[in-house]
């Protein structure tokens, strides 16, 4: 019987190895504030990250799943969100005359995409489609670290490597060739709050923002998780005492 239990422990132990082994290349691990059982997002980093997204990424990458109203969650006031949204134009309609018309975006609108459709996006990017970034950190293995390293992974190609037309060398991209030119350099975004704007800092803030975009429920989830687990532990302990008392006479 003991062997039986041992086997199951082994079973669960090795099933953990699964996840470890399936990641293709070992990524350098960065420390993130949202990791761990009490992880949270830093509001400052989130707002700076949004700035990096809107000044650098949003030229090519959409975030279709987000609404401007979502930005209230990262610490912008309602008026600020209204102001941010009004910088974008959406096509609405038809109006009473049956015409489509343009208007300023409102907080209840989704993030406006840089291109009208996928085909326009491809046509403007050498045929490569810039993926939507709404859930990008969940759509890649070890997403946060992957994006962070990818953004900083642009290097000169080794002498024996031919980099294709319109492609760039990146040590973390599968096949080492990526269609996206290096997006982030030192000082490519100026922070209003005077935070150091090295490439590493910009990439870190952006990844924090993208992780929030993919998992906006993360803080609530972890908070609730601790309570639920505590509930099961306490209830389990009471039942354990009752069960022992009950079974004492049986054996």
């Amino acid at each position, binding site marked *: *019987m003991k*062997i*039986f239990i041992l*086997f*199951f422990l082994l*079973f669960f132990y*090795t099933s953990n190895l*699964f*996840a470890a082994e*399936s990641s293709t290349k070992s990524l350098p691990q960065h420390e993130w504030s949202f990791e761990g*059982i009490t992880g949270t997002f830093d509001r400052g980093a989130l707002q700076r990250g949004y700035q990096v997204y809107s000044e650098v990424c949003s030229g090519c990458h959409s975030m*279709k*799943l987000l609404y401007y109203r*979502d930005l209230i969650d990262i610490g912008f006031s309602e008026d600020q969100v209204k102001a941010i949204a009004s910088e974008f134009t959406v096509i609405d309609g038809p109006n009473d005359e049956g015409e489509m018309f343009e208007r300023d975006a409102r907080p209840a609108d989704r993030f406006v995409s840089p291109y009208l459709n996928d085909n326009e996006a491809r046509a403007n990017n050498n045929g490569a489609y810039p*993926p939507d970034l*709404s*859930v990008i950190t*969940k*759509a*890649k*293995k070890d*997403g946060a670290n992957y994006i962070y390293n990818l953004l900083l992974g642009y290097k000169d190609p080794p002498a024996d490597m031919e980099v294709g037309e319109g492609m760039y060398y990146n040590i973390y991209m599968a096949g080492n060739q990526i269609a996206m030119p290096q997006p982030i350099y030192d000082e490519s975004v100026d922070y209003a709050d005077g935070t150091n704007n090295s490439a590493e800092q910009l990439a870190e803030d952006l990844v924090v923002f993208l992780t929030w975009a*993919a998992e*906006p*429920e993360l803080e609530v*989830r*972890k908070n*609730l*998780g*601790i309570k*639920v*687990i505590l509930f*099961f*532990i306490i*209830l*389990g302990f009471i*039942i*354990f005492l*009752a*069960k022992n008392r*009950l*079974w004492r006479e*049986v*054996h």
Partner: protein
Amino acid sequence: MSGPAEPKKYKNPVLNWIEFRLPIISYFEREYGDYPMPKNCNYFWSFGALATIILVVMIVSGIFLAMNYTPHTDMAFDSVERIMRDVNYGWLLRYIHSNGAAFFFIVIYIHILRGMYYGSYKYPRELNWILGVFIYLLMMATSFLGYTLPWGQMSYWGATVITNLFSAIPIIGEGLKTWLLGDYTVGNATLNRFFALHYVLPFVIFGVVALHVAAVHVHGSNNPAGIDIKSKGDTVTFFPYMLFKDALAVCAFGVLISAVIFFGPNLMAEVDNYIPADPLVTPAHIVPNWYLAPFYAILRAVPDKLGGVLLMFGAIAILFFLPWLDRSKVRSCNYRPMYKWFMMLFFVNFFILGYVGLKPAEGLYLLIARLGLIYYFGFFLIITPFINWIEKPKTLPASISDIYLGMNK
């Protein structure tokens, strides 16, 4: 049934009124109150109760998800994300449902392995075993259908690969595949019918589970010694003894599943499923859910498509015949010194098959899958029927109470 027996009398007049017209009160009292359980049952006997609870949780969370889900190829992915973002506690519902499916299989696998190790499938519980395998089949179908619904890359390509298997059947294959899909390829018609079937199958499972439980209650539960109940002293009543034991198991399970739901909800998910389905882009590796992977390994271990499909379905079908393949009268592997080790090896082998099922079918992985395939069928067709020619089982204890007498000395 020998006609209406004398109805039981209760103090509560409402209960009496119901009992007189439908003896359901005494039924529950008999089956879930006074029901005798062998007192030596260990915690492996709690997994049946756990599975039932998960089934209910899955059905309830699934109904609420369905209220917010749109089964259309253009909207399915976004509607799931809307559940995750804008529906109150929608993320919790969805993570409970997706991780619940994985844990359902973990629990069911332990439940099945327990049944195999302690010989619970043998006389007089053969029908019970068959119903159980039937539930397992329905679960696999349901989980496959459900995996299609979020309409991510793995949903689409998984559905494409699995439905393609039907085209391997000679003559009617292509027609059957088209009939199942409602189209020539996986598309909107497929998504609609998969959603309809995914909604209805759990209720079918629930019905078979009711039969499964009713059947086990006829002859009573098996136990780790695998011997029959001889006297009342061998048993404890379900209430309160087993109920408290099961409740403790539920709490322990609750801690485990909550850890995953709240702190690693995507650990068991494929990252590619967060990319919307794209029929023009094939993912590098199309992998099934890990709980179906052993059968996927068997499928790919065979170089011939039809042969692979036949062996894969054969691997499940052979489970139905286990009660008749095993010729030994001794139920529990604890008293079968040789078969016990072959049984353990079978479990390990099944796990290894699952592992290689998630890896690309080439080189060493393919070789391991083939060896695993041979042992899988060898276990059922050679070892199980013929081992009792050479195996000498240990002496069984005279009764369940005797086990404890020996221990106290």
